[in-house]
């Protein structure tokens, strides 16, 4: 059998040069700043969260997708009405694999439904507010939800429909919470703006609405976890096992009630830094809840995150319980790892997703002995790459200025610091870092290629030049990569698989990656007659 010829190994610099070669000079100059090679004592900047270049086949989506799809999508008991022509509502209908589990068959679950005002020509010409009002009424009549949300799409912003006014009117009329999002697709430069708009509105209109305190000794919120492929179910299982109470998740498998009582938790844990770090910040200012960065992707990462939570509460009972749980769970993880490691060790990966996943999944690959050659975010900001310390230096450009920043002050009735300044300082001294995220780049090997807003041309080129053993991105990228004979794992939607979070998730992922990097499919690219096309003189069996 023919042995697959490995490409000769190019240096990261040479790869970068290759990527830039084909661009017109102006485009090349911009991309140059968005492609970064990690080095020793790396303190240089990467350009991120800037406009995509017209005509370049980007991986990004839009603000509406970030708002409706990512943040509000996984919430089951809010009726989400898309105000606009039909497409936007249609595409965000069940396409993110957010799973949810209503407690009983009669409990609310609106997730399998898509609601839209299906704007027509005349609504664009004469305005769509009346139709939107009517749609709210009809939705209420049919479903009697506890809350409704309205999402503005591109044309709505242009014709000037006031979605917030309609929401206020409906709130009054129906006596339920109705709120709206100005998440028109053209705002901002990526989904990230949509996360921000969504979170701000939830924070303004829902968080703090219900002061009922849940039973439980150690109460936390899990922020930035979206229950793709059932991740949240596994995280909930582990937390419960440890005796930690989840007050809310933002927003995997979440409910209105969870958001409304989120301010009663004693600690915020942040998974996806990009999509939600500001909510953690605001909750700290307004209610006095400290936050830490955690990560439940990867078994070691999960163990580390649980220990951090236990350390925060500082209770021996919890600390012991967490160790027990880890001790109980780890052997199974180790068993699977032992099985896959010989097959995955030394293999290479590339990761281009979202605004934290491209970092988190590196932990899983590390556990399998795999190196991430190149990674980047679809809509990260500089702090997601370089760490939070750069936040004060980030220049706010015109596109970001459109995204409302909330002025938050301590809530007169509800602010109560969960830990005293001394306690926090002591914990810091013990190594527990608050409000901190070091970003993706410091954790990557030197000489890795970090690329912001990767596009299709560069993706295909990277694969061609570096032949990774596996490539991770989204559905749009999947099949061009596979045509080149490289297995491609979707990390937005998991290809119908998952969960990959927590201990059980890690096992699933190990097995999945082993399956992919050892598959025989990829070696069948050439038929026997192509391997050896020259016919010798004999034409018959002899």
């Amino acid at each position, binding site marked *: 059998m023919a042995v697959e010829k490995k490409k000769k190994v190019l240096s990261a610099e040479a790869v970068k040069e290759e990527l830039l070669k084909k*661009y*017109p000079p102006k*485009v090349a100059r911009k991309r140059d700043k968005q492609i970064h090679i990690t080095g020793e004592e790396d303190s240089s900047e990467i350009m991120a969260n800037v406009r*995509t*270049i*017209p*005509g370049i*086949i*980007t991986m*990004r*989506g*839009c603000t509406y997708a970030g708002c409706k799809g990512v943040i509000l999508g996984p919430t089951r008991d809010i009726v989400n009405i898309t105000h*606009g*022509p*039909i*497409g*936007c*509502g*249609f*595409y965000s209908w069940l*396409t993110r694999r957010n799973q949810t589990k209503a407690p009983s068959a*009669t409990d*609310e*679950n*609106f997730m*399998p*439904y*898509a*609601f*839209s*005002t299906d*704007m*027509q*020509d005349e*609504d*664009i010409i004469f305005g769509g507010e009346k*139709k939107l009002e*009517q*749609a709210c*009424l*009809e939705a209420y009549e*049919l479903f009697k939800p506890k809350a409704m949300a309205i999402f503005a799409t*591109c044309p709505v912003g*242009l014709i000037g429909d006031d979605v917030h006014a309609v929401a206020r009117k409906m709130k009054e009329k129906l006596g339920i919470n109705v709120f709206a999002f100005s998440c028109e*697709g*053209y705002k*901002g430069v990526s989904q990230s703006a949509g996360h921000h708009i969504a979170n701000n509105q939830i924070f303004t209109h829902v968080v703090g609405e219900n002061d009922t305190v849940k039973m439980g000794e150690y109460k936390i919120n899990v922020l930035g976890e979206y229950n793709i492929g059932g991740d949240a179910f596994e995280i909930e299982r582990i937390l419960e096992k440890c005796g930690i109470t989840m007050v809310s998740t933002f927003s995997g498998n979440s409910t209105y009630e969870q958001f409304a009582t989120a301010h009663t938790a004693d600690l915020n844990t942040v998974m996806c830094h990009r999509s939600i770090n500001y909510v953690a910040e605001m909750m700290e200012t307004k209610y006095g809840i400290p936050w830490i960065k955690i990560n439940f992707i990867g078994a070691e990462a999960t163990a580390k995150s649980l220990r951090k939570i236990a350390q925060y509460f500082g209770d021996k009972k919890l600390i012991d319980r967490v160790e027990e749980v880890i001790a109980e769970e780890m052997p199974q993880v180790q068993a699977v790892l032992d099985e896959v490691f010989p097959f995955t060790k030394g293999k290479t990966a590339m990761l281009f997703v979202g605004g934290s996943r491209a970092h988190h999944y590196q932990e899983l690959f590390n556990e399998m002995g795999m190196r991430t050659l190149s990674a980047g975010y679809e809509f990260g900001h500089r702090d997601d790459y370089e760490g939070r310390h750069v936040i004060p230096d980030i220049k706010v450009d*015109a596109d970001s200025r*459109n995204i409302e920043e909330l002025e938050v002050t301590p809530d007169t009735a509800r602010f109560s610091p969960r830990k005293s300044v001394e306690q926090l300082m002591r914990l810091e001294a013990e190594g527990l870092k608050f409000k901190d995220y070091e970003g993706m780049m410091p954790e990557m090997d030197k000489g890795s290629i970090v690329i912001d807003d990767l596009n*299709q*041309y560069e993706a295909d080129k990277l694969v061609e030049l570096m032949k990774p053993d596996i490539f991770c991105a989204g*559905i*749009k990228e*999947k*099949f*061009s*990569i596979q*045509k*080149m004979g490289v297995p491609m794992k979707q990390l937005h939607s998991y290809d119908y698989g998952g969960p990959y979070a927590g201990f059980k998730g890690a096992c699933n992922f190990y097995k999945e990656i082993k399956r992919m990097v050892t598959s025989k499919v990829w070696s069948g*690219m050439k038929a026997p007659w192509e391997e050896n096309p020259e016919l010798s003189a004999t034409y018959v069996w002899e």
Partner: protein
Amino acid sequence: MLLRHTPTEIKERSALSINPAKTCQPIGAMYAGLGIHGCLPHSHGSQGCCAYHRSTLTRHYKEPVSAATSSFTEGASVFGGQANLLQAIDNIFTVYEPEVIAVHTTCLSETIGDDLKQIVDKAQKEGKIPTGKNVVYASTPSYVGSHVTGFSNMVKGTVNVLAESTGKKNHKVNIIPGWVEPSDMEELKRICAMVGVPIIMLPDTSGVLNGPMTGTYEMFPKGGTTVAEIKSTGDSMGTLALGEWCSADAARTLDTKFKVPCRVLDIPIGIKATDRFVDALRIAGGTSVPETVAFERGQMLDMMADYHQYFFGKKVALVGDPDQLIAMTEFLLTLDMKPVHIVTGTPGKKFEARITELCKEKGYEPNVRAHGDMFLLHQWMKNDPVDLIMGNSYCKYIARDEDLPFVRFGFPILDRPGHQYFASVGYRGGMRLMEKMLGVLLDRKDRDSPEETFELVL
């Protein structure tokens, strides 16, 4: 119950669409563009629409779907998108080197009133379109029509820009296949070859969206209608347009502009529509139908007769696109099945009239709605249950709740493969459809049979 909030009682809604049975124009335009050889579709608007359209097409076809976008941000939305499109055209030709760019608008660029013709002319003047390369375009606002309309508009836009008449006939027949699968286009070409009629098929996504794996990625695979062919459509002997909604406009454009006579037929799904297609083809091409085609027809008829008893009287709920539903309804009726609830999201009163007329021959009046949604379909089904549901993947929620046999048909099919490779049109396609329907109906019978009646033979 996944759709547990869907009540039996039906109230007319005037503003709220729930679980739509259509989507927006640009995705259709993008699909049509992919059927042109060496073409990169381009979405003129903000990048979210393009991402959504690419994702949905990719999920349906399980193939790379490349398309560029003008990536509007707030500025472009205020000042117009001309600068973005000019820059995009330049970048696209430099980086991706397509033969053709097929530009369509989105709600956003339509609402601000960008004029594609004017911008493309400007690009031409400024030398942004290299010699020998082309930019075609279509206006596709999503607040009019549906994805089907967008498809139709892009096909029309393409012939509008490219087709020409040299005064010399090319002795070919144009086939405008409508929004069908690449497998269907392949099958139509096979039938035309059997009947011996030289054709130009536009668009043609076979080989593009059901391509092979070779170890290299070709951004522009071998398939697709070439620019030379599209130009030549103005010289053809005639046009067969399959589907009033998808294909008629382009055919009529060729007729008006170049006097290429056209006939609008149904998409050849089912025996009757296929018969009409083959007959029209033979007449247009001046050939006779060979034995091979008659043989396939006979096989289909044989299968229809053999399994008639399992289809007979079965009530069906249908959702999808107008051209496909019309042909499918007729097919089901020839099998003596009863499509009782039929919904399309695409507006057009003619649809309701045509379906009603088809069922009238069978002596009943179906529930039919154009510009309807799947919520309504489901409510109808609750009031008058059916034996089978056929439609896109979103039907699986209804099928599960109502515990129904389900055949995936139409767009988008997100959760099963096959449609890209195995046709539904023609006699063979009809046989495949019957196989699928029979499979789910008999699986259900087997599942529900008590042990004493669970038997081996048919």
